[in-house]
């Protein structure tokens, strides 16, 4: 979890799979919900799985099937889906300094979700260049397959699953905030970073708690970055 280069030891892709295991707790319950909701919206089980396979972006998939079910024009459905995913624009450039020249990286970007980005942003700098592609492949494939597998479960047996284990559905998603806590904790290295990150956390929490989860991430991130640069320029001015 530091910038020190540490070999994953053994096969890099196994290390990627191991590091991505906490993602399953968040992905599978949400994917089951998606499979269930898409089914109820009129999509067949195979169509639902296909959507998870090719779009692979949680919030926008819920929006996609919801808007289609409500009879919205398809061009608007596509535009809204892409707008929600616009935050992904800043992920790959943030990882670029640690990616090697291999062409496979381009295809692997299909798996660059919010959570995979957060994980890779912390782990890739700590790995030797020769292990990064293998690590990312393992982590990305596990996350992708768990999303598609969870969707399939939801589409075929979602009703029975959520009825039998209601508490599991409630508890497992906590793996995601727990993972983000672990990824973020080492970054509180100064008052400047603490203020910027704290601002982003609080603003996103307030937006999400008030029913605006899709706006939460971009708005909170922009405000957090603004706090960082304003405080930095003030500090320089005082010096």
């Amino acid at each position, binding site marked *: 979890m530091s910038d020190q280069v540490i070999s994953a030891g053994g096969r890099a892709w196994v290390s990627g799979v191991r590091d991505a295991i906490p993602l399953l707790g968040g992905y599978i319950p949400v994917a089951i919900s998606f499979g269930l909701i898409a089914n109820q919206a009129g999509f067949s089980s195979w169509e639902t799985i296909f959507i998870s396979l090719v779009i692979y972006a949680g919030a926008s998939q819920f929006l996609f099937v919801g808007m289609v079910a409500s009879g919205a024009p398809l061009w608007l*459905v596509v535009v809204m889906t892409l707008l929600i995913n616009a935050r*992904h624009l800043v992920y790959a450039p943030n990882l670029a*300094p640690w990616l090697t020249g291999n062409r496979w990286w381009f295809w692997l970007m299909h798996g660059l979700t919010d959570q995979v980005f957060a994980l890779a942003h912390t782990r890739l700098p700590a790995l030797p260049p020769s292990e990064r592609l293998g690590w990312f492949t393992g982590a990305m494939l596990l996350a992708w397959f768990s999303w598609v597998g969870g969707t399939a479960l939801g589409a075929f047996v979602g009703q029975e699953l959520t009825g039998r284990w209601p508490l599991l559905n*409630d508890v497992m998603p*906590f793996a995601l905030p*727990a993972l983000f*806590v672990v990824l973020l904790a080492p970054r509180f290295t100064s008052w400047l970073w603490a203020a910027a990150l704290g601002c982003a956390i609080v603003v996103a929490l307030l937006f*999400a708690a008030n029913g605006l989860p899709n706006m939460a991430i971009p708005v*909170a991130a922009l405000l957090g*970055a603004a706090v960082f640069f304003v405080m930095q320029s003030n500090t320089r001015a005082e010096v």
Partner: protein
Amino acid sequence: MAGELWVAVMVAAAGTLLMRLLPLVWMQRRLARENSQGGTAAMPRWLGVLGPVMIAAMLGASLVPTAGTLNAWVATAVGGSATLLVWWKTKSLGWPVVSGVVVFGAVRFLNFVVL
């Protein structure tokens, strides 16, 4: 699914992939250009700040529990503290997450049993 709906799915999928892929191509070209000009290849400063604050925003958004009850919020606070405490002790990735989920689940289960 009707024909035009298949097209909508494929356009949304291609658009999402391109939003993840094209910025990488742009950044790699920029870094390669800076390298070839003899300079030190570096990300723009704003991008280096935006990465961590995006993760912070994801944390904030994910802290809202699916069940919006007082117990769920308390479980979130206790589970989050347990995660942080175990991370502080172990500085590892897996154990803090497992501990956080177990503690969160225990608080939720207590509420489930009592009420």
